[in-house]
């Protein structure tokens, strides 16, 4: 028994170490690939300049701003919707309607991203163009809306799981005191499912930041700094995809590693911030 336990402990410890090392290796690899650009001393220019290769300027600021806008808006849109859906599934109707909705959400996770992209291009973009009568409709708004639909299943499933873990005795006590469904959600469920809700948010934010296809197909890919959510924008991932498809050894090409590094730092900062906030709240 002890031998089996030791084996299990070694296996799990190795898996954890491997994951940590892999994460650090990826960071090291990104730095290594960025070295040629870093050595030229162009890093400040790359982070702050506009993107204009014809004039020798390879700035990615517009892409950083585009990424932050699109992922943040998509999160803002999908968070309340996902919260409501999870509440419906787990608390209001855990019986047949809730189970059916959960099945639909699970199915949504299996739909390839490109399908969402098609829906975005041929349905959402024309609607946005018609409603706002502004530009082509390929905008931060369209990409954020589509991305919100893409990331909401992750959040809904995570939130539902964390709601399900709230001890039943708390829910019984609240019910017996005459709480309405919303009071139950805000006073008991959310405070006790906070960690799970935050983890779901972080994962969804990571997914929104890392998604390439939706942004590439719907956001319009403009390299100019956007001034409103109806403007086109390009995300870092879409930028990497576009450059890598057309080039392999120019300075333009080498800047994509800086893009990767920036993405890595942005998502890591997001996760660390979320973990810090959760710990502070739990304390």
């Amino acid at each position, binding site marked *: 028994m002890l031998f089996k336990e030791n084996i299990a402990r070694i296996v799990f410890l190795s898996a954890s170490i491997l994951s940590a090392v892999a994460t650090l290796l990826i960071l090291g690899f990104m730095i290594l690939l960025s070295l040629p650009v870093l050595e030229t001393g162009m890093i400040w220019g790359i982070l702050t300049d506009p993107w204009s290769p014809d004039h020798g300027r390879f700035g990615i600021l517009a892409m950083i701003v585009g990424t932050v806008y699109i992922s943040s808006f998509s999160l803002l849109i999908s968070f309340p919707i996902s919260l409501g859906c999870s509440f419906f599934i787990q608390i209001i109707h*855990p*019986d047949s309607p809730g189970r059916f909705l959960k099945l639909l959400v699970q199915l949504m996770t299996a739909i390839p991203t490109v399908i969402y992209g098609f829906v975005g291009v041929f349905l959402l973009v024309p609607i946005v163009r018609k409603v706002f009568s502004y530009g082509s409709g390929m905008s931060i708004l369209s990409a954020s809306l589509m991305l919100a639909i893409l990331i909401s299943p992750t959040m809904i499933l995570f939130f539902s799981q964390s709601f399900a873990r709230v001890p039943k*005795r*708390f*829910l*019984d*006590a*609240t*019910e*017996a*005191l*005459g*709480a*309405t469904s919303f*009071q139950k959600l805000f*006073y*008991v469920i959310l*405070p*006790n499912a906070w960690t799970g809700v935050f983890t779901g948010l972080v994962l969804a934010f990571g997914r929104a930041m890392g998604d390439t296809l939706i942004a590439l197909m719907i956001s319009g890919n403009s390299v100019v700094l956007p001034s409103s959510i109806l403007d086109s924008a390009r995300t870092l991932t879409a930028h990497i995809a576009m450059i890598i498809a057309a080039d392999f050894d120019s300075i333009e090409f080498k800047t994509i590693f800086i893009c990767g590094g920036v993405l890595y730092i942005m998502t890591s900062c997001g996760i660390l911030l979320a973990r810090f906030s959760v710990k502070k709240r739990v304390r």
Partner: protein
Amino acid sequence: MENNIKIQIRNLWFYYKTISMLEGINVDFPENTITSITGPSGQGKSSFLMTMNRLWQCIDGASVKGEVKINFGNGFEDINHQKYPLPMLRRKVGMVFQTPNPLPMSIFKNIAFPFKLIGEKNQNKTFEKVEYALKKAFLWQEVKNRLTEDAGVLSGGQQQRLCIARALVLEPQVLLLDEPTSSLDEISAEMIEQLLLKLKKKCTIILVSHYMDQVKRIADTKFILSNRQLTLQEE
């Protein structure tokens, strides 16, 4: 006699999925008395209690047929009527569970929680009521200097009295108790018995209990729930 009746139950059926747990129960519970319900485990005693505050609606697959009428001062009202407001019902019919279930918050916040639910903004009034409820539950002396501490640090007996205080804070007219002393030591159980005897002057109490000695000591009317039927237990 009709004037003294608080709860009137007629032809009550309780189903769990397709299985009937209670079959055609007819019973009246007099006002300001303690009525005990005993019987073997798994016969539906807790479910029966839940028919009086509609908490059965939280049980997946449960359904109820029949009339449960309670006189809250304006004549008998059928609480199973769809339009009867649930939050209001549960504020008038308090419930205490077998296992103490304080919420993960401070002692004060636990007792003040029902006030938060009804949107009471007056802090002074809330504090007065919390103090009153804790005194009523014989808990004030033990916790008056630790109101901001987490309720989870209290002993089992204290937690159960806290739950009783929380159920009492909105001054319910009916109090349902589902084996409230089963997880407590003798001294704590005795304290709760004394508390119930005092409470019955203002409240109609329905007590589910396994302890025959306890039932003999405090119950005015005794019923046995067995084979899906409720029968009056003669002295």
